[in-house]
């Protein structure tokens, strides 16, 4: 596995994450991310074939609840902290022309 990321790859990952990174900062990110990936590369020194991955320390599965309404409508409260709303709806820039 190639452990170093170039500027173009970093820009691509940043786009996947919908994260704007200033172009002059990209080389720094590329250097730091490469160092981190190089660091985690140590994992590959161990053979883990047949080892069950661990998702929860207690190895329990996700608890399910009854499919009933448990929340009250608090739209007005929640929309008080929204950047932009109108008639109870959240406003975002136009998506469809």
């Amino acid at each position, binding site marked *: 596995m190639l452990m170093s990321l170039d500027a173009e790859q970093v820009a691509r990952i940043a786009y996947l994450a919908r*994260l*704007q990174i200033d172009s002059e900062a990209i080389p720094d990110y590329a250097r730091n991310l490469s*160092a981190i990936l190089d660091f985690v590369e140590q*994992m590959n020194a*161990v053979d883990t074939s047949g080892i069950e991955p661990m998702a929860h*320390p*207690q190895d329990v599965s996700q608890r399910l609840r009854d499919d009933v309404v448990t929340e009250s409508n608090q739209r007005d409260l929640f929309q*008080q902290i929204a950047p932009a709303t109108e008639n109870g709806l*959240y406003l975002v820039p136009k998506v469809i022309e």
Partner: protein
Amino acid sequence: MTALHQYSLAALSRGLAAGDFSSVELAQHFLDRIAAHDKRLNSFITVTAEQALAAAEAADARRAAGDAGPLTGIPLAQKDIFNTRGVRTSCGSRMLDNYIAPYDACVIENFDASGAVMLGKTNMDEFAMGSSNETSWYGPAKNPWDVERVPGGSSGGSAAAVAARLAPGATGTDTGGSIRQPAALCGITGLKPTYGRVSRWGMIAFASSLDQAGPMAPSAEDCALLLQAMAGFDERDSTCMEQPVDDYVGALEQGIEGLRIGLPKEYFAEGLDDAVEARIREALKVYESLGAELVEISLPNSHLSAPAYYVVAPAECSSNLSRFDGVRFGHRCENPKDLEDMYCRSRGEGFGDEVKRRILVGTYALSAGYYDAYYLKAQQIRRLISNDFTEAFAEVDVIMGPTTPTPAFRLGEKADDPISMYLSDIYTIAVNLAGLPGMSVPAGQVDGLPVGLHIVGNYWSEARLLNVAHCLQMETDWHQQIPEAFK
């Protein structure tokens, strides 16, 4: 005469019960201390003085009505990661600088029900990602033992506030060491409970399979009182476990004759500061004198903890932080030209460098074609690390070692080197990966800087850990030391 802030939280609880002072007097005393001293420490992001005094009055009324518990009227500092209704909950980030939480976290509800009084919200690394408090949008909190040094992180504000006695107790959260490392660097006691012990509901998520909230206070007895209120099942957190809550305070005085203490040879190896090791060995001698037995053990996969952690944590962080999109709450950029521009710039402006790095690492590790090589591999290594502990706990009752390899480092010293920063949590990370409970307990000083003893127990053994820590604190007074400038 002893001033109120020089008492432990447990002693203040007894003073309130005896009527030696009121909750209002107590709250006012700590609010005055915050006003007088926090400019030097920057340990609070928000101080809630009015609400604190109102809550203290209510606590006094409750006591007068004969309805007081041990925490009724006790002032506490809450890490700014817990949602607090009507109060800004910033998580140390510009992203949430304008976020007034519309609800209370379960931990906050529990403390409210116990009658505790919130003094304010403490400083922290942005979204709990950091080991020095330097990634906070609000500037770093400082270490009260030397304000040129870091308090540790991410719960650095809570640790600094308690160490300087600006609050008798605080909450923290711990994903890779964020309670224990700052507790060690600031000379206080901190406990990360078993994963699933305390509800994560309303606690802003960083890495959901690792995050756990816990108490930070001068002594183990104080932490026992706080954990008693925090612990318990909550169906709103789907990973919280239905496990009975022990009597933490009641278990403190048990003897430890015959306790088997495992010392992992990997935790006393290269990279550990000699003077720190000397303090740890002295604490271990105290345990021997109390009848405990020291046993050398091995945790052979220890060296893989940090590499696995720096896949699991960023991967889960990149997923959790995708909710911050500028649509419903939090920072939104000015004049977005379209929806995508709004997402990218709101997030680019709202998050700091370390958070961005982790989102990028996580996004890469989870991207098509890399999942097996990174996340799956890390989860397999997590199993190996957990198995090491299971084998160890077949032989010993608790595991001990240093909490950190060195005392507090200087502000700026590691800020430009992520990997060297990551390694300051080298002894604490494995405990989160395995989901075990762990504590840091003051164990002396090196050149005037505190050293923490790390105590790790088996699942659900919080009562035993607090008991073991309490026994050391009956024999030593490191947990009672207050930095000269804040006495």
